[in-house]
């Protein structure tokens, strides 16, 4: 996330502190800084951009309402990404229970794509989305975090609250399942 690196940690902390004091403009700056990164993670967890953007919107609202509870301003990014992860997992579990497939999620259409792009939902996108929804929550979380900006197994384990070995196991199982589910596209 280039904006984050360019602005540096101290700027982020200043924005977080200002947001906690009720400065709405400061929080808008945080939105602009982190919306791409948050959406990237959500897309990896959900497989499609429409559900991802919905979850990201919810995540920023949650962060806005609860920012007073964030003790260390410098941890804003990891705190926000954790909110995104939890909401995305809830969202995919709801989708799984609703239909067992992703058709229901597709009904809303691709709001964030151009009209032409919206019409061209490729078979591959569809297959990936279906495959991700067939992973368990922990497998989806592990493979998404692992693929997200090349986090290590150790970092994935830390975020998931499990050992490195367990994180590695979830990543392995997720890859194995996806290899079977997506074998026609490999």
């Amino acid at each position, binding site marked *: 996330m280039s904006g984050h690196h360019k602005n540096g940690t101290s700027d982020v902390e200043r924005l977080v502190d200002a947001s906690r004091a009720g400065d709405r403009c400061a929080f808008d700056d945080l939105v602009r800084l982190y919306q791409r990164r948050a959406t990237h993670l959500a897309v*990896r967890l959900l497989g499609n951009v429409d559900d991802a953007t919905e979850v990201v*919107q919810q995540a920023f609202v949650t962060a806005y309402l*609860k920012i007073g509870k964030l003790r260390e301003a410098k941890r804003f990014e990891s705190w926000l990404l954790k909110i995104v992860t939890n909401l995305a997992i809830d969202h995919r579990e709801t989708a799984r229970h609703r239909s067992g497939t992703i058709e229901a999620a597709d009904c809303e259409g691709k709001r*964030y794509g151009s009209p032409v792009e919206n019409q061209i939902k490729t078979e591959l996108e569809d297959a990936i989305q279906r495959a991700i929804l067939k992973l368990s929550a922990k497998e989806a979380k592990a493979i998404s975090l692992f*693929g997200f900006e090349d986090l290590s197994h150790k970092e994935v384990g830390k975020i998931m609250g499990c050992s490195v070995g367990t994180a590695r196991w979830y990543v392995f199982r997720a890859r194995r399942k996806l*290899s079977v589910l997506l074998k026609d596209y490999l």
Partner: protein
Amino acid sequence: MKGGQDRIDRLLDKNATEQLAKVDWDRLTDDISARLDHARRTEPMPSRRPVVVKIAARAAAAAAVIFVIIAFRIRESSDMRVHRGSPAAEVVDKKGAVSFQIKDASGRVLAMVQDGRTDKGAVKCDVEIIDRNGDLGADSSRAAWIIISAPKRTFVDNGYNREEADLMCLL
């Protein structure tokens, strides 16, 4: 297997990249902003009360519940009788703890919970026994709700002063 894993990773990367390319970021920013406006109107920002206050309040609530349960157990296990409307309650403040007594009109102690240490002071309270099912009969030992209230807010410095004040309020 390693090659298969790499292909899966590349496939997921490619999908994420293509999906993100479709996002209209300005529109997403506007949508988030609109939701924040709505949230600010409909949901109050949470207060930033110190954590210690919240912990103290929860501890006081738990203590109050345990306290009342113990008081009733003692009462129920004894052969003493509480007559409706007549008893008075006395809360005795001690360093680090609160003791509790229910007395009848003659001043006789009907129930008491205390930790055995020396009394430092007392707060007189009013007590009302509420019978859920009408008047108590000859056997007045069945459970009933009680309301205990101090005539004014009392704050005793016992080293844990907030907890004691909270406990008084909860009682």
